């Protein structure tokens, strides 16, 4: 039976257990529900969970264990010639075997016989059935695929057997233990509580997943490329042409990429900080409610527009504009430049700064303003000398959060900044960033064996660490600031 069918059967069983337990509970007290410890629905839910949970656990176990077991089977079937190959080549052959096995299930009996006797071109036959193979099929592969299928069938039969057994045991236990005194509500609520805790730990799991997935590949990368090449190198030249040849390692200098990221982020902040800050001050201190209620959501639209749209805007509108404008001044501005990407990114992060600063300025206590105004200061003097210094930590936090956005932004720079690493301070030239290189190294081929693709994970980890430090520090000061005035 297929996994999908089994899951439907489990759901049906759970519904049946629910209905049975509920009616049975009512029956046990002859309809006098008050004698039950919990409401009948809780008895029903208890029944459903008692049946469903162990079965789902068995299913999950099979989902994880079966591929491991089958891979070992395939591994053991390989002839010595294959075992002598490198890990990655053997991996390719073994995945080919799995594809063949999947393809074989689509064939009818006479075709199967022809394949196992080697009478037909298996690769062409399978391609016809919609299973493309990477290389030609050898006899030993078909034999291994046959064993694979045989063991898979065995494992599936065993799974059904175990499921039936577990279901029977659980059912027996349910029938024995379903009494009016059963503390069904407490048990069900405990289960709910466990589910809630599981859901909330997904956030932790995600972070762990991010770190682990990048860390393991990064370590592999640094086994091939020395640390100093990556962190101190000033040349980025991964030698894409020689991927797979194994002779050329290439240069992976992080510095030009990091410089591009920093340059573009600085330009973005130079656009966004003055605009965002003054907009926030105006909205918090001067604007009437009506102006504030229209201007604030309108500015926040800027944050809701997908970054790909900004990228396109930079590519077709802002880039050509700067190029033509530069030409009239006699400047040579390239169509893709740090300036274009930075300015457009600055527009994007205006609302991050304006909204957060607005909240922070508004939360400065009234008494401080009134004290200053009472001494005869004008409103702008009050803002500059009293409100802003008081709000400064929070505003710095907002700017850091915006900076972390800018550093991690991808689509704008992919479309508008260029692809050539360039260690220049001239914003009119094209530069490239960490994120652009992650995209270009990882799109396309994904055999994670060459340093050319693995470097993307090292770059990703660098990016993650940078934004993590910025975020945590920013969140820390914003939080501390809030506590100060609460």
């Amino acid at each position, binding site marked *: 039976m297929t996994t999908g069918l089994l899951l439907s059967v489990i759901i049906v069983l759970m519904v049946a257990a629910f209905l049975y337990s509920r009616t049975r509970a009512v029956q046990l007290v002859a309809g006098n529900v008050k004698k039950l410890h919990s409401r009948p629905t809780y008895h029903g839910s208890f029944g459903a969970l008692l049946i469903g949970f162990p079965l789902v656990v068995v299913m999950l176990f099979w989902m994880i264990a079966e591929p491991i077991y089958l891979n070992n089977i395939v591994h053991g079937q390989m002839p010595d010639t294959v075992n002598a190959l490198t890990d990655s080549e053997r991996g390719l052959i073994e995945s080919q075997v799995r594809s063949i096995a999947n393809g074989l299930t689509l064939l009818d009996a006479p075709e199967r016989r022809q394949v196992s006797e080697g009478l037909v071109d298996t690769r062409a036959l399978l391609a016809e059935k919609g299973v493309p193979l990477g290389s030609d099929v050898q006899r030993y592969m078909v034999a291994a695929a046959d064993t694979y299928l045989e063991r898979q069938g065995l494992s599936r039969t065993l799974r059904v057997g175990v499921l039936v057994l577990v279901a029977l045991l659980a059912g027996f236990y349910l029938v024995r233990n379903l009494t009016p005194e059963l503390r069904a509500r407490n048990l069900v609520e405990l289960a709910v*509580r466990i589910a*809630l*805790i599981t*859901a*909330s*730990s*997904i*956030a*932790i799991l*995600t*972070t762990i997943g991010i770190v682990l997935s*990048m860390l393991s*590949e990064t370590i592999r990368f640094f086994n091939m490329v020395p640390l100093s090449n990556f962190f101190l190198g000033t040349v980025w030249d991964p030698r894409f042409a020689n991927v797979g040849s194994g002779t050329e390692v290439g240069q992976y200098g992080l510095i030009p990429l990091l410089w591009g990221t920093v340059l573009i982020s600085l330009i973005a902040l130079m656009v966004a900080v*003055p*605009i*965002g800050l*003054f*907009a926030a*001050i*105006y*909205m918090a201190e*001067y*604007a009437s409610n009506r102006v504030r209620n229209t*201007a604030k959501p309108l*500015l926040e639209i*800027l944050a*809701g*527009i*997908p*970054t*790909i*749209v900004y*990228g*396109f*805007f930079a*590519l077709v*509108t802002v880039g050509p504009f700067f190029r033509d404008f530069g030409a009239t001044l006699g400047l040579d501005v390239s169509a893709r430049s740090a300036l274009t990407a930075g300015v457009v990114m600055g*527009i994007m992060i*205006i609302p991050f700064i304006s909204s957060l600063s607005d909240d922070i300025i508004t939360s400065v206590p009234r008494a401080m303003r009134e004290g200053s105004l009472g001494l005869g200061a*004008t*409103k*702008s*003097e009050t803002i500059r000398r009293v409100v802003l210094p008081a709000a400064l930590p929070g505003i710095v936090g907002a700017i850091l959060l915006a900076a972390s*956005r800018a550093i*991690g932004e991808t*689509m704008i720079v*992919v*479309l508008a900044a260029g692809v050539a690493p360039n260690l220049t301070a001239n914003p009119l030239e094209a530069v490239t960033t960490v*994120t652009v290189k992650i*995209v270009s190294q990882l*799109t*396309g081929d*994904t055999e994670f064996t060459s340093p050319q693709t693995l470097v993307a*994970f090292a770059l990703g980890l660098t*990016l*993650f660490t940078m*934004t*993590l430090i910025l975020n*945590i520090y920013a*969140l820390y000061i914003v939080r501390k600031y809030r506590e100060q005035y609460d």
Partner: protein
Amino acid sequence: MTDSTQPSRPTSGRKTIGEAMKSSLKSRYAAEKRFQAYGIIAIALGLIFLGLLFYSIISRGYTAFEQTIIDLPVDLPRAEFSVDGQVTDEAISKANYSKIVREAIVKTVGADLSNRGEVRKVLELVSREASNQIRNFVAENPDAIGTTQIIPVLARGDVDSLMKGQIRRDVDESRRQLDDQQLVWIDQLIEEGRLEKRFNTFIFTEGPSSRAESSGIAVAVMGSAFMMGVVLLLALPIGVAASIYLEEFAPKNRWTDLIEVNINNLAAVPSIVYGILGLAVFINYAGLPRSSAIVGGLVLTLMTLPTIIIATRAALRAVPPSIREAALGVGASKNQAVFHHVLPLAAPGVMTGTIIGLAQALGETAPLLMIGMVAFVNDFPTSPWSPATAVPVQIFLWANSAERAFVERTSAAIIILLVFLICMNALAVFLRRRFEQRW
């Protein structure tokens, strides 16, 4: 002694302070005015940028909603579609459609069929997609075989650009994409009422294509819809469950503090990092198919979760404690109080947060590039496991094409995406306004 010196000082001092104040007051008020003006300028600049962005996209994109169509009278001779005198499905699908198109367009404009140069130029008026359109027409109407039918076919991209004024007629012939003879034919077709701009249905019904005139975003919309489905099914329940635990049940200790910091940080992690996670975990480790909607959906789910959790927690926090206390007071368990009373009251806030999270996920591109969604997919995805593409990815791919007609398509796709996003955000605002309770 002291008396003699004192009077002069305060009077002169008072006088100077008063004068100084008066003279400085003017500049202080000017500074006040300037400061206010900076604020107004800043807001105006922000709004101007917003306006420019929309203007730039809409002015480039609105033309893509119209498409130039030629009503071509096509001869469908029986001999073309039959084998041994019998009309069969196979003969219909294998008929020589380029010949049929060639003859039809040459005859319509009255060109010379034996002049190869002229025939080539005439053929440049109709899209290469025309043969497919005629094939589809014949397949759907086999009765039409043996007659002459007027079939609307797509004009070539250059003709379309000319009709939309993107190619100018007054440019010198040598630098124009269409030569004088072709212009004459086009004018002739316009006069006969055969060539005109119509509402462009292709952009809504077709997948991507190498020919700008026949490409659309339908396949991408389908892929995006699958992904949004996955995100909704996973992110909403998990996000709500996590928020309920953190807000209602969790003890205040280091562990929950850690989760809290974590969620806030995850909300600010660059989206491309989620793409790398998806590639490493869902594709390489779990072996899910590359560039499928399920992987895209999972990655976007992880990305959307923090947004939903933060919004849901705020909504739960806004429910006054008296509601919980009343429920507990009449004997409800803690779970019952939360699930029967607090959660329903927080539902509008949860919905708003979810819609905003979905809108954010809908526009996300970078993580999808990481999981291989850059392949050219022009079949409609049938399940979340089949190869798919998404609207923002389609926009990215088109944005990289050089052809003039694709700029128009890209902008049109952006307009459609923005309309979706605006609708979703409007719905969120509506829900908040309509159902939000203030205690």
